[in-house]
């Protein structure tokens, strides 16, 4: 199976008279883990929505395969009347490419996705019976069950407590190592971006101009102990200083 690359060329996006993205050029290699970083309102979430075709672009080009794309939102966005398992099964019911999947394979894949995020024992629970972290895990499982080649995440861990956030970051990184899909992760946290990504693209408002395009020099596998190493802290500091200057 091949992974797609993203090619953004002279992208412009305006909401009314407000230009959110101005002449953006960005290429993302297939199988890369890229973090889009920047302050609130700099246009990073808009880029994600444009990639997912949830917004029409004003001008320019975005080329990537629209099939096999999953998006994880800021909120878990689970359907309250469906159990965790039924939520994970949802893409099989509504995605035309997945609707041909046989019934037993659907269930097997959904259960495996829940297991991958450590929710195997909560499959029959409804969202209101899950904690914030568990809900986000279920949302992640729902995104992974489609075996996406492009996974877009819009500040998915922003509302979680630190411990859960750390745990989910490691889980996400490990899932990426396993599947090697292209990941675009939007965040406003430098530490989160450095811990997760191999490449960090910092944007600034107005116009989502690229302020910094940084290659993260850290081992492929990331564990909690990495957060206390000088190597990691140096990376955080480097980006921090370059942003300040």
């Amino acid at each position, binding site marked *: 199976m091949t992974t797609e690359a993203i090619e953004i060329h002279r992208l412009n996006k305006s909401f009314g008279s407000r230009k959110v993205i101005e002449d953006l050029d960005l290429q993302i290699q297939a199988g890369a883990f890229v973090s889009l970083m920047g302050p609130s309102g700099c246009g990073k979430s808009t880029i994600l*929505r444009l990639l*997912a*075709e*949830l917004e029409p672009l004003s001008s320019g080009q975005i080329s990537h395969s629209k099939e096999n*794309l*999953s*998006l994880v*939102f*800021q*909120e878990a*966005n689970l*359907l*309250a*009347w469906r159990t965790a398992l039924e939520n994970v099964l*949802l*893409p099989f*019911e*509504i*995605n*035309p*490419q997945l609707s041909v999947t046989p019934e037993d394979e659907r269930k097997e894949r959904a259960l495996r996705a829940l297991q991958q995020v450590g929710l195997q024992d909560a499959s029959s629970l*409804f*969202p*209101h019976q899950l904690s914030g972290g568990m809900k986000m895990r279920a949302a992640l499982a729902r995104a992974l069950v*489609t075996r996406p080649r492009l996974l877009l995440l819009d500040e998915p861990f922003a509302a979680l407590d630190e411990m859960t956030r750390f745990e989910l970051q490691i889980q996400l990184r490990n899932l990426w190592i396993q599947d090697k899909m292209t990941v675009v992760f939007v965040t406003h946290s430098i530490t989160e971006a450095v811990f997760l990504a191999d490449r960090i693209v910092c944007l600034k408002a107005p116009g989502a101009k690229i302020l910094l395009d940084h290659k993260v020099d850290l081992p492929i596998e990331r564990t909690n102990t990495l957060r206390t190493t000088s190597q990691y802290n140096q990376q955080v500091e480097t980006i921090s200083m370059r942003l300040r200057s």
Partner: protein
Amino acid sequence: MISTFKKSLPAIFSFCTLALALEGMIYWDLISYTLIPAPSMVLGVLKTLHKEFTDAFLESFSNTVQGLGLSILIGGLIAIVFSLSELLKRAILPFAVFFQTVPIIAIAPLLVIYFGFGSPTVIASSFIVSLFPVIANTLIGLESPPRLQLDLFKVQQASALQTLYKLRLPWAYTHIYAGLKISAGLSIVGTIAGEFVAGGGLGAMIDSARTQQRVDIVFAALLLLSLMGLIFVGTLAFGNKWILQRRPFDK
């Protein structure tokens, strides 16, 4: 069941207290029984005319169920069509407001001309009065899923129909239930108004008792109408609880 009974205890208590107070006031001539009958008189007339009351109750009940059923079916379908087509909504919804604003008593004679005396007119009257809340509430529910959930369906390339029955309809559940509660009460109002002009049921009994100044019959009919209302609301509440225990649409 026991907890439902416990919850209803304050209402039962206040009803009994009021009935006893009324009985006392009429017994000591504080209120004339020609204006308000004593509860014992109401029970008495219910007993003597029990056959007439039973038949009238069942007829009104059946007409109301059919009128409300039609409202749910047709109102639900109209709301679904409106939610799928903005153009149709803009073209037709203003006319649906007619059903909400027109006094049923003003068009009931027309219904008699169109449908004749008896049940068809009564059912039509009940339907017209109870239609709008079903359309309005269902439509609000169908149009109100959060943007992020609609985005999720869009990213997964779901069709409009899939979005309708897998997201919009379940999301609209609580709105639909609220609309049903309003419509259930209104459907009884529509039935009685229809029966005033088309005959039959408790409405006709009230109308004929009015001409004979029989307030005991009117109050007995009102008591039965309240009972009918309670049956409707109780059934809806029970059904709602049963559904929510299985699927938490309200969370």
